[in-house]
């Protein structure tokens, strides 16, 4: 091996070792930003109005933690409904069946055309419209009954209200994604004998994901914050609702709002990490750039050539 390495070194010119270009602009910008940031942090730390001791006291308060958990549950469940229903609606809007197309259009028209706050208030009033929900055969036997007056019902209505509203937006995102996949891809699938459903599931949707995921991440983070509107149901077990209850008693809204902001930011950060990995998964085949594994295989194949 050593002999071939020597031979290779003789053949190849010295690698270039140039002095890197100086970039003083970056250092100046960094200094200015750091000084400004330092001044702000100093000001905030020494200003008694922020009440940092109260902030510290409530940051890990069990009520706040439970509220954060409820907010996260609301977000995840509502988004699950939104993504599944939104995909169904998008596929319906693009399907050859005119009945499905029209139905999806009307759904979008209603749920995107009215404010989510109003929709949530409506869901809160649902129990005064329908006393109980019974699943079963019309005018026949019933299988399941829900009591719509309980607290669990308020949570369920919050999830349903947020999810159905968001589905309308997700439908448009998924539709944009589907339309971004070239006509040739569908033709190739159909020419291979794949059905319309197979073409959607195997060819179109996986490629559409690349376009769908970034705005969906946006919607997910938007949803996290929209959950604070569940007060319209009314439901106050979420993060913001709990903080409001606490500062309604101790009259210190600023530190408690900082506490909620901290938790919203923390959850958002976790969600962004998830988005990064999802995007990486669905960008397969997009770049001409070879993966590390492929590069290594090519380099191995090249070795005997250098030795020659």
């Amino acid at each position, binding site marked *: 091996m050593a002999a071939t390495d020597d031979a290779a070194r003789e053949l190849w010119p010295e690698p270039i070792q140039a002095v890197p270009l100086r970039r003083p602009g970056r250092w100046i910008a960094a200094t200015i930003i750091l000084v400004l940031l330092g001044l702000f942090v100093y000001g905030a730390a020494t200003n008694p109005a922020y009440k940092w001791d109260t902030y510290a006291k409530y940051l890990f308060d069990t009520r706040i933690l439970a509220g954060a958990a409820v907010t996260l549950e609301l977000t995840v469940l509502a988004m699950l409904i939104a993504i599944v229903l939104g995909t169904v609606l998008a596929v319906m809007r693009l399907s050859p069946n005119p009945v499905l197309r029209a139905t999806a259009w009307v759904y979008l028209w209603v749920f995107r055309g009215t404010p989510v706050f109003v929709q949530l208030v409506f869901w809160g009033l649902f129990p005064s419209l329908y006393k109980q929900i019974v699943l079963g055969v019309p005018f026949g036997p019933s299988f399941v009954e829900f009591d719509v007056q309980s607290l669990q019902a308020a949570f369920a209505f919050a999830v349903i209200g947020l999810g159905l509203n968001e589905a309308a937006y997700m439908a448009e995102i998924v539709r944009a994604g589907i339309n971004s996949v*070239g006509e*040739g*891809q569908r*033709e*190739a*699938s*159909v*020419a*291979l*004998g*794949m*059905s*319309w459903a*197979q073409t959607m599931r*195997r*060819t179109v949707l*996986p*490629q559409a994901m690349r376009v769908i995921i970034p705005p969906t991440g946006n919607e997910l983070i938007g949803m996290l914050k929209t959950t604070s509107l569940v007060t319209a149901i009314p439901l106050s077990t979420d993060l913001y609702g709990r903080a409001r209850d606490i500062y309604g008693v101790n009259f210190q809204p600023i530190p408690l709002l900082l506490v909620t902001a901290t938790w919203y930011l923390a959850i958002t950060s976790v969600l962004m990490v998830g988005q990064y990995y999802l995007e990486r998964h*669905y960008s*397969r*085949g*997009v*770049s*001409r750039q*070879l993966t590390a594994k*492929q590069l290594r295989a090519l380099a191995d194949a090249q070795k005997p050539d250098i030795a020659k």
Partner: protein
Amino acid sequence: MTATADAPVPMIRAERVCKSFGALQVLKGVSLEVARGEVLCLIGPSGSGKSTFLRCINHLEQVNAGRLYVDGQLVGYRQKGDKLYELHPREAARQRRDIGMVFQHFNLFPHRTALENIIEAPTQVKKVPKARALERGRELLARVGMADKADAYPAQLSGGQQQRVAIARALAMDPKLMLFDEPTSALDPELVGEVLTVMRELADSGMTMVVVTHEMGFAREVADQLVFMDGGVVVESGPPRKVLAEPEHERTKAFLSRLL
């Protein structure tokens, strides 16, 4: 269409096939026949309806008038007595399974590797076990000279390599008929040869092929029948050497003189 002993059913039989898009008539009565194992090359100016006719054969476009049969079976419709019934998409998909198609722009699935592209239809449509599909996929890749690129994504391949994978993908469904829609038109000149070589080998193996092409050299050497189309009709057809050397019609002459 019933087969008789002395006249076997042709692979393709077109009887005055017409196709219009709205008010625009693209095919105005195309009649031709392709026997089993025969290679037919379709040439003609752009807009003459060659590609549309090709797409009618595997029902990517629906024929408006006339009759088109593949392997004795009416394409896109079912005939009961005098009436024609539209086929259910499932039945249309079943007809397409046996017809391979290669596109001008390859249309490989960019999110799947070369090998995954090839096994997609066999595993999804024909429900072939994955292990067997992979084995056959590697054989097909070797056949088109792409054995070492099994794990490459289409974006990492040259145009010629992509088209060879696309041919292998079509072959994976064991088609009885292969359609080529200007397979080399989107390629750099130095890459055309490798694709034509694969197609020539395919023709030699006895595959029935319909090729829309501008490669006159390929048409002369490989085709059994050369068809010149213009304005939605077949202007002239016959053995390629004869049509290319002594065209009978003025329009054929004019077209060929522009090419050479």
